[in-house]
């Protein structure tokens, strides 16, 4: 069942000549307990999309739906319920925790505000949450200040804080990119477990394709490019046989921790190395100036819709959809 959805959402920043469209006509839906990934390079609109999903930015056009109801157009009670139900975990655990408050204080405040007035119950709940996110022994961890914790431990506190209000969905924006490689997997496992064990829908936003593949291994990945979703597919299909030429280029380009695989990769040769600026978006498909499958008169004129291909995937590419074939195969990059 769809829990949270963006429906043809667009977000513009600035006005007049300086206006840019950071997210353009994006539709994404997350089911209860689903682990969805949004990947893309810097400036693709993934963070703006995450903020719209979490209700921190209002779409300039389009709607945000929570349990089928319009969050921004509905009654105040709906918005209040939505706010509690959807939590955001930020990238930087050094900036997102108050340095003057202990872990216990950080966790207790929202519990006392939203769940109970009884301090003893609040404290017990906080300790339970610490156990749940793997910060043990919980009473010792509860007494610490953020500066006494490592980056990974801080990120666990941030996740525990998000859980204090018993959310139905968590949006995690680059939640592992600032912690050491050696412990990223355990944090991803923690977030993944929230989805699979407790039914908390989790949207992970990342620039790291390998992280998306691992986190979304049973789910779906949305690939964004210059404000649009260009591919939305089951994760394994996406990495094995990318449908959009941009996804194919990413998969072929990403360096891998395996000398033979990484040195022997089939690359997609792009027509241009530089990404266009959001303030001067190309006509038609915004990938057309770089795309090796570009067809003049089609790709530079018409904006492609996200349409289904055979298999569990949608792609916004005129050529792949017409040929009913993933771009990776058309490019011989498989």
């Amino acid at each position, binding site marked *: 069942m769809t829990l949270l959805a963006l429906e043809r959402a667009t977000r513009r920043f600035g006005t007049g000549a300086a206006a840019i469209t950071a997210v353009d006509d994006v539709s994404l839906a997350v089911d209860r307990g689903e682990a969805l990934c949004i990947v893309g*390079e*810097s400036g693709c609109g993934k963070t703006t999309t995450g903020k719209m999903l979490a209700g921190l930015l209002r779409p300039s056009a389009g709607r945000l739906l929570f349990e089928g109801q319009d969050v921004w157009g509905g009654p105040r009670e709906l918005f209040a319920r939505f706010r509690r139900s959807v939590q955001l975990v930020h990238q930087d655990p050094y900036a997102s925790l108050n340095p003057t408050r202990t872990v216990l204080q950080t966790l207790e405040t929202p519990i006392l505000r939203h769940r109970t007035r009884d301090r003893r119950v609040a404290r017990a709940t906080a300790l339970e949450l610490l156990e749940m996110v793997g910060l043990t022994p919980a009473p010792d961890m509860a007494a610490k200040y953020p500066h006494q914790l*490592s980056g*990974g431990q801080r990120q666990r506190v941030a996740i525990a804080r998000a859980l204090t209000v018993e959310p139905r969905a968590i949006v995690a924006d680059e939640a592992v990119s600032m912690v*050491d*490689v*050696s*412990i*990223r*997997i*355990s*944090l991803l*496992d923690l977030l993944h477990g929230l989805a699979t064990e407790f039914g908390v829908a989790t949207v992970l936003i990342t*620039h790291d*394709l*390998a*992280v998306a*593949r*691992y986190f979304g*291994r049973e789910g779906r990945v949305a690939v964004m490019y210059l404000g649009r979703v260009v591919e939305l597919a089951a994760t394994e299909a996406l*990495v094995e046989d990318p449908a959009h030429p941009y996804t194919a*280029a*990413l*998969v072929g*380009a*990403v*360096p*891998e*921790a*395996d*000398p*033979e*695989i*990484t*040195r022997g*990769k089939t*690359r997609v040769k*792009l027509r241009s*190395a*530089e*990404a266009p600026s959001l303030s001067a978006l190309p006509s038609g498909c915004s990938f057309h100036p770089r795309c090796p499958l570009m067809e003049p008169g089609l790709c530079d004129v018409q904006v492609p819709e996200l349409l289904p291909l055979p298999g569990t995937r949608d792609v916004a590419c005129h050529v792949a959809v017409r040929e009913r074939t993933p771009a990776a195969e058309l490019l011989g990059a498989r």
Partner: protein
Amino acid sequence: MTAPVLAVDDLSVEYPTRRGPARAVREVSFTVSRGETLAIIGESGSGKTTLAVALIGLSRAAHVTSGRILYTAADGSTEDVRTMEPDELRRWRWRECAMVFQAALNSFNPVLTIWDQFLDTARAHGMRDARQVRDRARELLDLVHLDAGRVLRAYPHELSGGMRQRVCIAVALLLRPQLVIFDEPTTALDILTQRAIIDLLRDLRAKLGFATIFISHDLSLAAELADRVLTMYAGRAVERASVSDLFYRPRHPYSVGLLRAVPRVSGALGSVASIPGSPPDLVRLPHGCTYHPRCPLVIDACKREEPALIPVDTPEHDARCIRWKAVAELVGTERRAVAEKLA
């Protein structure tokens, strides 16, 4: 056999702290041959950047407490970087050994154009003829695939992250160094930009023949470019191996842990897992092997004495682990990713 361009011998570096010295680098030894690429890998806090900064004599807060850094010039003369006079050291840097730092924006003076940055560096190293500098700058920008006409007039903030990193590389090559040290050269860059920088570095290395040291937490960079890899943990070199031995036949449990911690996009996902615990306090290092509190293969003997670097499998491969045979049994010798073999 010709002498390696760099031979580091028992190098130790400490930071003074209120609680006593933090031993960031302890008795690290390695060599880099002419044209060779060495990657130094490890978590943050493993000592890799401290080591790199010490190599070029730029340590400020840190003290190099022992060891030698022997540099052999193209004419065959060898000298210890540690005993160079300040003037001599300044000449040696950039002319013989250049360093490219992470986050290329901080490497520039924001109020100078790229041309001025080139000129500054050139003048500091005795190139007085501006026309000669301009020709060389154009040649180098061409080499890193930038439009010299446009880039030389630009200020750093006008360039993208990838372009700035290319400029840094070009400036590093200004005086034709024999050795270039890169500290996290692709961190914080987008995938397609990372790929372009990696391909560029491979290409430049082949054309110009300089030796390279990469410092990175990113194992994929080592997999892409390294001939040999050195794994650091808590200031120690814990494993030294060829790139294929390190990735397919690691013999130190920490190398295995690092390899398993990084998921892949291509090929089987395998058994991916984080390393439990966190790196040790460098002021109060654990007794015995410093990795023992996190090691899945720990036995009592590991807690008693710190193991030496001992040869494993081949003479070119050594590991600081008394349990290396147990590691070998686990990961075997097949040319497949460790996470895949442990699945």
